[in-house]
């Protein structure tokens, strides 16, 4: 008992000298190795995702540049890639369509999905459930190393491979069908320059990342079901683990559909099959297609995966924010079980709402009605979660550190993203706002506003467990401030653009007189986007600096309850020096019956001398 009691030491305030024999960069030093340690794999994912975040951000700034200063020479990058862009540093329409396609593809498949499931899922699942590693460590390692061919294929899809990769015309010939890649545009090579080899590489990347996700998904489910520490019952699991578990189930059921349909499209594109190509289409004066296929089939199959994928991109964030809010507010999570059930409800409903992406696609209008009702009802579990997060802060003693600020931003932004979703869930209103910037605003509020703020908070929160040091608070707050201002300045006006009827994916919306007056607003948004983009260098700088010089953290710097905080920082191979036993749920903060304001899961109950009971009145 006493041996377990010493495992939570005083925490951040203990200023040990750096020469205390602990190699705090032990995990970081292994990132180039083929390690099967889940923590190393998690950090490999995290670093990879941060790099890709910058790549995706750069692509986004290209898009923003064209919208604010159409057909003007791109600063800095214009000269670098002028060889590829035929128009001497301008963004050509082909290049523009490639930019937003690859921005979305990189952000979704190389940043948002892997940073939640890959980076935090890998790092946290064994630590939080008290396991020494994942159930299938080798599979786990493979799931990371498959990200490298994925990145390579995406680079080819971007047109970086030159003539060797078969992409003609450099980056102007990059994949440019949008991340949804609707056929027939994506199925027929003659439909656009990006539909040639660029599309092939894009599909290779998506299939490859699908295999990687599937490896992770199988691993997470097995690990969470089989490898929990003694005493870790399902309802003592932290919400992070619940959300990772539910996400893994979502992935397992949704992904095979995408993989199958991806191969079908690849065959259409390369072998000339006609899964998605009807007969008699004359595209760009080529021979009429033979056909027999249905292009709506792709939309059904694609969204059958991609709508659950939207929840894959936010559910783990919901779980992580719940854990971080509870800890930073020093009080139990409000409504633990409703939180679990609403996670499950979102996941379950998530499978029967895919048609809301297709309201105006020409599918049977009766389907539109059922999909509308299920889509609007999915707002309910989301609302329950928001109320419970606010309830968690309510009556707590929040410390306004970077973790807390990012979590509050998550809640605040998620409210906007959730509410704007109701507009497009309502079919008649969606007729108007479909494919306008209103949609763009909505999903950026959910994916960036919610998920990425959670990721920023999560990096600050679990950084000490990864590298034994705390991140710098001041720079963290400056990063948060700039990102928050830049984010809202960029994305809030997009709602207004959408209401004004500005369609998505237009290289030059100002060709249309009724959109001309929106140019100044777009310029303001682009300036905000540039601020937000460059603010991410602060995060990267803070991350690297803190790895080396951050304040040294003990095992449990946040005085948190989760099992991960009983392990050394960073944990060695096998994680726990003392095998943990779980005695209670993860949210027992500020229990008046306990001396300290937190009561870790691994701490045995204190046997108090029984107070003399008041005499029973008889």
């Amino acid at each position, binding site marked *: 008992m006493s041996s377990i009691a010493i495992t939570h030491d005083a925490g951040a305030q203990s200023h040990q000298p750096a020469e205390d024999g602990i190699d705090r960069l032990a995990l970081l030093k292994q990132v180039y190795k083929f390690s099967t340690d889940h923590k190393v794999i998690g950090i490999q994912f995290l670093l990879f995702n941060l790099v890709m975040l910058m790549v995706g951000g750069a692509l986004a700034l290209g898009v923003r540049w064209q919208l604010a200063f159409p057909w003007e020479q791109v600063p800095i990058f214009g000269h670098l890639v002028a060889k590829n862009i035929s128009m001497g540093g301008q963004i050509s329409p082909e290049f523009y369509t490639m930019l937003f396609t690859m921005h979305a593809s990189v952000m979704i498949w190389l940043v948002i999905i892997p940073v939640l499931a890959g980076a935090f899922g890998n790092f946290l699942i064994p630590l939080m459930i008290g396991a020494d590693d994942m159930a299938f460590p080798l599979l786990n390692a493979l799931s990371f190393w498959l990200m490298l061919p994925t990145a390579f294929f995406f680079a080819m899809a971007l047109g970086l491979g030159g003539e060797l990769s078969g992409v003609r015309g450099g980056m102007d010939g990059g994949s440019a069908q949008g991340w949804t890649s609707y056929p027939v545009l994506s199925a027929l090579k003659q439909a656009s320059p990006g539909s040639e080899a660029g599309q092939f590489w894009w599909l290779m990347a998506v299939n490859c990342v699908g295999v990687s996700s599937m490896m992770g998904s199988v691993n997470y489910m097995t690990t969470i079901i089989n490898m929990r520490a003694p005493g870790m019952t399902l309802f003592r699991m932290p919400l992070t683990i619940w959300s990772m578990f539910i996400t893994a189930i979502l992935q397992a059921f949704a992904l095979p559909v995408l993989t199958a349909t991806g191969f079908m499209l690849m065959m259409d594109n390369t072998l000339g099959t006609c899964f998605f190509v009807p007969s008699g289409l004359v595209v760009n004066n080529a021979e009429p297609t033979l056909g027999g296929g249905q292009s709506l089939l792709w939309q059904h199959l694609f969204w059958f995966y991609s709508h659950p994928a939207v929840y894959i991109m936010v559910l783990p964030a919901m779980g992580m924010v719940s854990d971080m809010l509870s800890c930073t507010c020093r009080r139990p999570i409000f409504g633990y079980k409703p939180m679990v059930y609403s996670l499950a409800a979102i996941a379950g409903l998530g499978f029967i709402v895919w048609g809301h992406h297709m309201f105006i696609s020409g599918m049977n209008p009766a389907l539109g009605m059922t999909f509308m009702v299920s889509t*609007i009802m999915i707002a309910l579990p989301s609302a329950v979660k928001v109320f419970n997060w606010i309830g968690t802060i309510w009556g707590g003693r929040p410390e306004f550190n970077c973790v807390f600020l990012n979590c509050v931003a998550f809640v605040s932004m998620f409210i906007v993203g959730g509410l704007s979703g109701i507009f497009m869930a*309502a079919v008649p209103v969606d007729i108007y706002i479909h494919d306008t910037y209103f949609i763009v605003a909505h999903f950026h509020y959910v994916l960036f506003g919610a998920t990425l703020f959670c990721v920023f908070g999560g990096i600050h929160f679990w950084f000490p467990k990864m590298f034994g040091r705390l991140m710098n608070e001041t720079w963290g707050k400056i990063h948060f401030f700039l990102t928050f201002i830049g984010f809202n300045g960029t994305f809030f006006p997009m709602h207004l653009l959408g209401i004004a009827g500005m369609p998505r994916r237009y290289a030059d919306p100002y060709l249309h007189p009724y959109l001309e007056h929106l140019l100044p607003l777009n310029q303001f948004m682009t300036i905000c986007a540039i601020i937000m983009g460059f603010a991410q260098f602060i995060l990267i700088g803070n991350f690297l600096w803190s790895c080396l010089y951050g304040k040294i953290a003990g095992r449990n710097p946040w005085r948190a309850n989760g099992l991960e905080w009983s392990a050394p920082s960073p944990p060695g191979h096998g994680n726990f020096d003392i095998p943990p036993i779980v005695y209670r749920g993860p949210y027992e903060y500020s229990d008046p019956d306990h001396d300290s304001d937190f009561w870790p899961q691994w701490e045995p109950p204190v046997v108090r001398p029984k107070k003399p009971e008041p005499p029973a009145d008889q």
Partner: protein
Amino acid sequence: MKWFWCVFFAFWPLVAVVLCAIAPSMGWWLPGPAASPLGHRIDDLFYMILVITTITFVGTQVGLAYVLFTGARRTDPDVQEKTWFSHGSHELEVIWSTVPALVLLFIALYQLNVWAEYRVKDAFPKKDMESVLARLHQKRTARDSIALAEVTARQFEWRIRYPGFDAEGNLLPLQEDPQPTDLYAVNDLHLPANAPVMINLKTQDVQHSFFLPDLRVKQDAVPGLVIPVWFEAEHIRSYPLLCAELCGWGHYKMKARFVAESDAGFLNYLRNLHSQQNYDGVQQKADDGDE
């Protein structure tokens, strides 16, 4: 510093609401009032959702600001108030599950009529459409299509096919397949105003989307499908027509116009097309030779 952050999180929703309030005066709002009866109803639904979501937005953000301020106050050194040790409240969960559920269900069910009228074929205002065709003196049987034009999208333009006139100058019904009498135009759609009119929407190559922002009409043109779309313009004027579904690099330049005309104006337009397309280069009628 904690007070700064409390104000920070309370301040931004205020900015958002103010921005939305001034947006219409800045032109960052709907492009004018809807120009069709269905558009008015869509706008009404939009405003209804806007009111409900604004109330929810303000309510939740005020709630968030309140818990932040009280939480920050509790961490002041001189405050003795304890943290609330509670794992939740069943009553509250029930309240904040059922109330939103009812509101959401109301929103969902309230939308169905407009949607049905716009898309479900049986709910189309068929009688009104037929009366327009009667006003145009179209020679038709009950089995003929009530569509007045076929709009075919292609990279990157809109091709429009109208039915032509017979030898007596009567308007013919639109046939499924092109007829020798058909009239053609590109990027210029003319139809009668003040009455529901229907078009058949097709695409010749990839997917496109027929978007009339002022009329709040949007419908994808899907390869292999012929999709009926109806709308009713309230004013005799020209409206922008755009593509709303990514169709390739030139997506942004599928710029066209829809001109709503009076019945007579529409027939005139067709007659003009007819004479242009049947113009054989001969200026005057050839003499019969019996002079």
